[in-house]
């Protein structure tokens, strides 16, 4: 129970943020003048005129990048608690993490050598 109360400021902040967003969107809808025309209603793309729909097939190249990102993100999650208790774990904790990182280093070297980080060239 006391733990939940610890998050009370966070909760109040979240409510305030939500309130601010919702009211500003609604208020600008009511107060602001509305003169719609074709150019204004089209989606804004850095000033370039949109050519066709955005729902097109994207190259698969993006996907492996995201997958590798997830893998190393998960690695990071393991390092986080390790760093917090590093002093208490002593040498064994250090060795454990070295093994963990070495195994993933093999993965890193593998990606590097097989061209997983290259965007254009594909010389496998």
């Amino acid at each position, binding site marked *: 129970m006391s733990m939940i109360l610890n998050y009370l400021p966070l909760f109040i902040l979240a409510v305030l943020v939500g309130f601010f967003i919702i009211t500003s969107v609604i208020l600008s809808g009511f107060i602001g003048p509305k003169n719609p025309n074709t150019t204004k209603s089209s989606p804004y793309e850095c000033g370039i005129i949109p050519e066709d729909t955005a729902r097109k097939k994207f190259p698969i190249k993006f996907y492996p990048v995201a997958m590798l990102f997830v893998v190393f993100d998960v690695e990071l999650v393991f390092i986080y608690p390790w760093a917090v208790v590093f002093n208490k774990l002593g040498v064994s904790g250090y060795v454990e993490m070295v093994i963990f990182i070495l*195994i993933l280093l*093999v993965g890193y*070297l*593998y990606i590097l*050598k*097989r061209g997983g980080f290259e965007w254009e060239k594909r010389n496998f």
Partner: protein
Amino acid sequence: MFIYLFMPVFISVLTGLIVLLYDALMINVRKWHLLFISLAGIVISILYSAILWKLPFSFMNGMFVSDNFSIIFSVLFLLSSAIVLLISYPYLNDNNLNFGEYYALILFATAGMIFMASTLNLIVIYLGLELLTLPLVILTCFKKGRDFSHEAAIKFFILSVFSSSFFLFGIAFMFGATGTVNIAQVVMALSTHKGISFPYMLISVGLLILGLGFKISIVPFHIWTPDVYHGAPTPITAFMSTGAKLAGFAALIRILFYIFPAIHSSLTEVFIVLSVITMTLGNIVAISQKNIKRMLAYSSIAHSGYVLMVLTVFSPATVAAAIFYLIVYIIANLGAFGIVLTLRQKDKEYLDITHFSGLAGKNPFLAGFMAVFMFSLAGIPPTAGFMGKFYLFNVAVNNGFTILVIVGLINTVIAAYYYLRIVYLMYMKKETENVPSTISPFVKIPLIILGIATVFFGVFPSSIVALFKTTLFLTLKL
């Protein structure tokens, strides 16, 4: 001392890492170097396992254990991986596939299997299962652009993730019911709070059986098997139907062994039903298969059904009979897939059952060995398959499952039809189509070893069964 405990699994992982990096980093990689390194690693692993024989250890309260049960299974995993590595060599060569990744993934999968067999902790079993499944998924679509292989990989991946999540859910319920994920402590935790968390326990065991039942393809969870076995490269099919299945059984036997005392006999009927439908469906559907890999897939489903027969009663005899049956099954199955693998020219494979017509006239060596393996799978006397079934049915009768044995015998007769049909086609039929066969020493040597093992275990089974009876069960208790 605990360093020794990890040696078998550590060596196979290390070998996998070395093979992977050697292939990726070096410029002029000789392919046989990779094979040699992998096999050397496996041999060293087996030697370390042998050192640990009869020296039961437990690390971190059952987080990782090394008892006779786990050692027998580890050696079996390592041997079947070694044979798969050997028979893959000409296949990879002809299809121009990468050796480094392939061998490394097989070694990692082997490590996963060893983890599954040598732990009392459900979390480690789960992670071992993942470490086994993930490489298998990649290996299933290893030969890209091949018919069915992508479809097979996607089916396998999605369904195995599904089953793993059921397994995880089971672990969560187990923790909720007993406050531990160590299966050796479950009974004690339950007995201190008698009857309190029993329903949770039942849900948990049901979910755990579901998760592992997927791996060993028990009938309601078997649907992936034929498609994946068909779509995967043939050596990988051999690996999946032997090593991977064995790992599932190892984990299942260990979990049931510890948990059955806690749930008494609530699940006996469930296992009887599962066993009957698994055997019957596997065998009946196998009859109508035209493709040899699909036929062997259904036959492997049926064989799981036979083993399930005895998994409701745990005594030295049942465990020994189940493991002996599994050994006999993997020997014959590896051999059969090895022969299926030889019927190809370069990257074109001949997988129809009719392609076996007239093989005896053209290649008596292959036909003879295929006949031995088929006899063994069917359970015909001079081979190991007969003794395996004999021990299994014997144990089942002794434990009062006479009806199960009758069903099993009927199934054996059904199964004999489709196994012997291959023998019939090989010896009695004329060749209908010109089917080439590529046989290299890498396939020949394992085939000879497997063939000899099949006959040897058929003639002298008693010593090994007696060994299992005396050594396995006692250390299982730790």
